[in-house]
């Protein structure tokens, strides 16, 4: 798997986990079209970001800061799984 595919896998893994905890059916079998933002409030976004940062660090042995509210249009990165994978891949 290349890096983008690895990031896709951790995004899916994290969505499944969060979906089970928060009872969000759309996260049970995520695809790149899965809409994220519409299901999460700000705390949910933070919870997802914290989990993803840990998975990313475990996978790539380097740290990443996914939550960056100072960035313009930050929340648009969480619209779908696809936008989130692209965003993390570009960090």
């Amino acid at each position, binding site marked *: 798997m290349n890096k983008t595919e690895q990031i896709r896998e951790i995004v899916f893994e994290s969505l499944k986990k969060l979906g089970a905890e928060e009872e969000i059916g759309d996260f049970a079998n995520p695809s790149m079209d899965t809409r994220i933002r519409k299901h999460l409030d700000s705390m949910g976004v933070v919870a997802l970001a*914290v989990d993803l940062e840990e998975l990313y660090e475990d996978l790539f042995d380097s740290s990443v800061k996914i*939550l960056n509210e100072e960035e313009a249009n930050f929340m648009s990165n969480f619209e779908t799984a696809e936008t989130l994978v692209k965003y993390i891949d570009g960090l």
Partner: protein
Amino acid sequence: MGVYIKNVAYYLPEVTVSNEDLQSEFKDRDVGKMANKIGVFRRHVAGPDETALDLAEKAAKKLFEENDKDDIDFVILCTQSPDYYLPTTACILQHRLGISKNAGAIDINQGCSGFVYSLSLAKGLVEAGVSKNVLLVMAETYSKHINEGDLGNRIIFGDAASAILVSHTQTMQVGNFVLGTDGEGANNLIVPNGGLRNRFDSACEVTTDQRNDRRTDNDLFMNGSEIFYFAGKQIPSVVEQTLAANNLTKGEVDFYLFHQANKYMIDFLAKRLKLSADQYYFDIEDIGNTVSSTIPIALKRCLDKGIIQKGDKVLLCGFGVGYSWGSVVVEI
């Protein structure tokens, strides 16, 4: 020399604000939905003429129903709602309570980590032989810092005071501490005006955020997402450090008492630490987040309910404004 928590008491102001009260004020907001996530359904608030000092006095008097005030030789009062710039609230409290004039008395300014910080200072005083019986008082009236139009914060916070006797006589033994600070987060939980950098400004602008919460720079501002992010990232490693500092494994700690920030955050931390529901506590439905008093109140309630018992090792962990964090293990 061992240092021990001998007793805990707390006081809640008489006035309460229910979620129904808030809903009637904020008709266009869904208070119930917010409350379910936060886990607070009612909170106590100080009256217009009731200050942190008044709450502190009442909490200490409850403590003295079972402990002799004449034994107190040091007072540490933790508040971010002092009656005055000077003198310290602790000095006035000493006089009100009739504590010996030979006792030391200081205020410390800390928020949600304040109890653990105060406990660490008390332990130092007792171990150094400066003091034998330290009265810790956590007293906070954040309601006075919060704009009436700021539902987001009004729903979370409640006012309270707690009083804790720290002593050289054997009761609940205080272990080793982990303390930390990251001032880069200072602006994420702040009352910008009212100090000497930015004076209180009666004409300052009222702003409304995207959630429709209103505030001015004279009021408390909290960036909840950033605070949650800080806690979610920082606290699991603080817990690991505290276990190491006390030569314990996670399984050897019987119970975890975190600062009772809100339900979502505490459940999130528990999940990250892989704690089962019977290993941690959340109980602020009827009182709200009382800042530095959340841990002492939770400790008292757990003791009264028999949730934690003699011989249990309990990890206490406070975190928040500053950013600041502190953690310790106590053996009941």
